[in-house]
């Protein structure tokens, strides 16, 4: 079965993001396909490159990046949710006269169209948080 996932909660706000992550791993292990995860609202906090939790805690961002690398999952961050919260990729930062690129490996920034397309493409669409 083909899944699309939406994550609305930040890593430290609730377990929803990590539950989504574990669900995806379980779905992949069971032979299902997960083709896109859409990070919306506070869910965009999963994509911050410089999140630096203590070494003995879960490394949320790094785990998502690794998941994307291993399974070619499209990790899409909503652009308006991201910009509101100060998460800018390099070209957007440049456009705004700001510096740096905050987006972690494996994520990309795009619009709500990607969310709608995911719901149309998937057999099942699940929202976490």
């Amino acid at each position: 079965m083909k899944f699309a996932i939406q994550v609305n909660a930040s890593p430290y706000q609730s377990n929803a993001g990590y539950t989504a992550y574990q669900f995806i791993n379980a779905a992949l292990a069971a032979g299902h396909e997960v083709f896109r995860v859409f990070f919306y609202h506070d869910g965009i906090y999963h994509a911050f490159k410089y999140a630096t939790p203590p070494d003995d805690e879960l490394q949320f961002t790094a785990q998502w990046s690794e998941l994307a690398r291993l399974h070619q999952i499209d990790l899409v961050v909503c652009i308006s949710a991201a910009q509101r919260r100060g998460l800018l990729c390099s070209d957007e930062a440049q456009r705004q006269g700001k510096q740096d690129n905050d987006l972690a490996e494996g994520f990309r920034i795009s619009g709500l169209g990607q969310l709608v397309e995911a719901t149309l493409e998937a057999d099942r669409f699940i929202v976490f948080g």
Partner: protein
Amino acid sequence: MLDIILTTAAFDQHVSILVLDDGVFQLKNGQNPEIAGMKDTAAIFKALEIYDVNDIYAEVESLQERGLKPGDLCLPVQEFYRKDIAGLMKRFDVVFAG
């Protein structure tokens, strides 16, 4: 949620709206958001017609519990009792909770 409604409608999908619980206040008449320095989102709801979004549902109990009547809302709504909401949702392929 309005963003999702507008984007989905722009993708030529049939979109309906159900307001539940405090969501019914979204459509309340006579809001003056500018006094609080906020955006007038009720005006955007009124523009939904342009996007062919015409089916707006409200839960009867949600309105009653807040002392509202359909006439207090800025758009015409079709009322559904709480017991019928699950059946209503079942008619749709995708449900976004806001």
